[in-house]
């Protein structure tokens, strides 16, 4: 097996008395997309910041390209591309000027940066906006400009913190397409997301975090098969407790009640659907188990304090 691009080993981070990252270890292999999912406050952003040397771990080690973080921060960052959760574009500069100014932070010569700008703008589908300022761009355009900016140094590894939060479906699909192109070029991506469809679509492997701990790791499909029954039936329109009680035991392996909805998890939905059909006034939705079910099973349905 080849050396991983990024390796985190037994990371711990405490703020006061709360442990935000709790014995976390993972690898990012060359050419793979690793997704980090978890509820708000799970430690995703802190892990991210540690990987960037912006905050130091209390214990444990981080190696990027075989170099230790934070000792080799500058050498590592020269080969990284970062898109943070909130855009940090320069509002006073146009799109091309944003790229120009950012390239200089990498010590690149102006002529070299200027040469790269047209291709990057075209990759971000922003060629027609080269002279526009960020305030004239839509949310999706701003995110793509942030991505283009992160590519100015032709990095091998990309760290993306919630790259599509707040975007409309069109803009998200365009972003996914671009990220897939980058993966095809052989780049590695570490990304955090709240969107399970995004995680399922883009990520080769997933890391599920909760309360700073790794609670699951693996390929999206494998995780679903491993933790969940294949069929889900959602039922609403009656007294959820009554429905759950009268049908459950015989037809479903697991039953969850959330608000007015009952979730049945079963290996075969047909007998369950038949039994439910005898109760009048119910509405049912039959679908295969997905990543969202997995996420909710592992991290619970309750709203987090800061969510």
């Amino acid at each position: 097996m080849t050396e991983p691009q990024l390796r985190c080993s037994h990371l711990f981070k405490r703020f006061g008395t709360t442990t935000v990252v709790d014995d976390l270890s993972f690898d990012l292999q060359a050419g793979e997309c690793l997704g980090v999912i978890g509820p708000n406050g799970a430690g995703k952003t802190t892990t991210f910041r540690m990987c960037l040397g912006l905050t130091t771990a209390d214990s444990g080690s981080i190696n990027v390209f075989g170099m230790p973080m934070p000792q080799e921060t500058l050498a590592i960052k020269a080969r990284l591309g970062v898109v943070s959760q909130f855009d940090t574009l320069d509002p006073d500069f146009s799109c091309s000027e944003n790229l120009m100014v950012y390239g200089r932070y990498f010590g690149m010569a102006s002529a070299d940066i200027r040469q790269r700008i047209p291709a990057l703008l075209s990759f971000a589908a922003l060629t027609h906006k080269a002279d526009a300022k960020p305030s004239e761009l839509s949310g999706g355009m701003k995110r793509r400009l942030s991505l283009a900016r992160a590519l100015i140094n032709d990095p091998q590894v990309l760290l993306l913190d919630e790259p599509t939060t707040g975007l409309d479906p069109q803009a998200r699909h365009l972003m996914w397409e671009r990220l897939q192109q980058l993966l095809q070029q052989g780049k590695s991506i570490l990304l955090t997301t709240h969107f399970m469809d995004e995680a399922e679509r883009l990520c080769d492997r997933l890391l599920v975090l909760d309360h700073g701990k790794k609670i699951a790791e693996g390929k999206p499909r494998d995780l679903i098969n491993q933790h969940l029954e294949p069929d889900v039936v959602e039922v609403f329109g009656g007294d959820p407790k009554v429905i759950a009680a009268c049908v459950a035991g015989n037809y479903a392996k697991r039953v969850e009640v959330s608000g007015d909805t009952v979730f049945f998890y079963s290996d075969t939905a047909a007998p369950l659907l038949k039994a439910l059909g005898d109760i009048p006034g119910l509405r049912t939705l039959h679908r295969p188990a997905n990543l969202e079910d997995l996420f909710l099973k592992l991290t619970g349905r309750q709203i987090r304090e800061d969510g």
Partner: protein
Amino acid sequence: MMQLRFWPVFLRNFLVWRKLFIPSLIANIAEPLMWLVAFGYGLGALVGGVQQGDEKVPYILFLASGSVCMSAMNAATFEALYSAFSRMHVQKTWDGIMNAPVRLDDVLLAEMLWAAFKAIFTATAILIVMLVLDISHSWKLLIAWPILLGVGITFSCLALIFNALAKGYDFFTYYFTLFLTPMMFLSGVFFPLDTLPEMVKWVAWCLPLTHAVALVRPLFMDQWPDQALLHLGVLALYASVAWWTALHLTRKRFKQ
């Protein structure tokens, strides 16, 4: 090459400023000039001259030499407070920069030097106007120039301490009201310090602006300052202590 990591950050600020050059020029220069004209000529007509050692000098010359120091102070302070805070906290420009191979220390150094540059730019423009108005034409003004750069550095370091501590723009009101405004009146910019009570005089000599004025004023009058090394030493001490404090507090702010 990598020792100059602050340079692209400095250049970034310069490029933004170049876009806003005209309004910025007016803000930085028109106001000090109004002070100079209103007080220098207006009040100067009432006051006549000011006794400086054995010599009586025109009030406008007395005021001009002090107010150029004050303008350098104000330019550096505004830049290192409001503008730096916008970049650090509001626009998150610093966060973006630090995702590239640039350290927080480099960013802070760039901000410090940038605010000092704004100070020397303002001071230079005022010096040129003074030459044109023939308020002073001593060749020693050339020596005042690097001193004014030092004044800019001192006050930008001081302001960066408050930048590191600020939660919002309102916080800077304390700095202006409790520190800068009293200093403006106590540092011999508008009137000589000899007229002040002993106790107040003692306070005045603890303030950095007093030492800046003590260095620059004689040069305007084609003389050499007394105890130049002492005054330079005080400014250097203020600058270095303020720089390390600002650096420490800024690092602490970004630790979280």
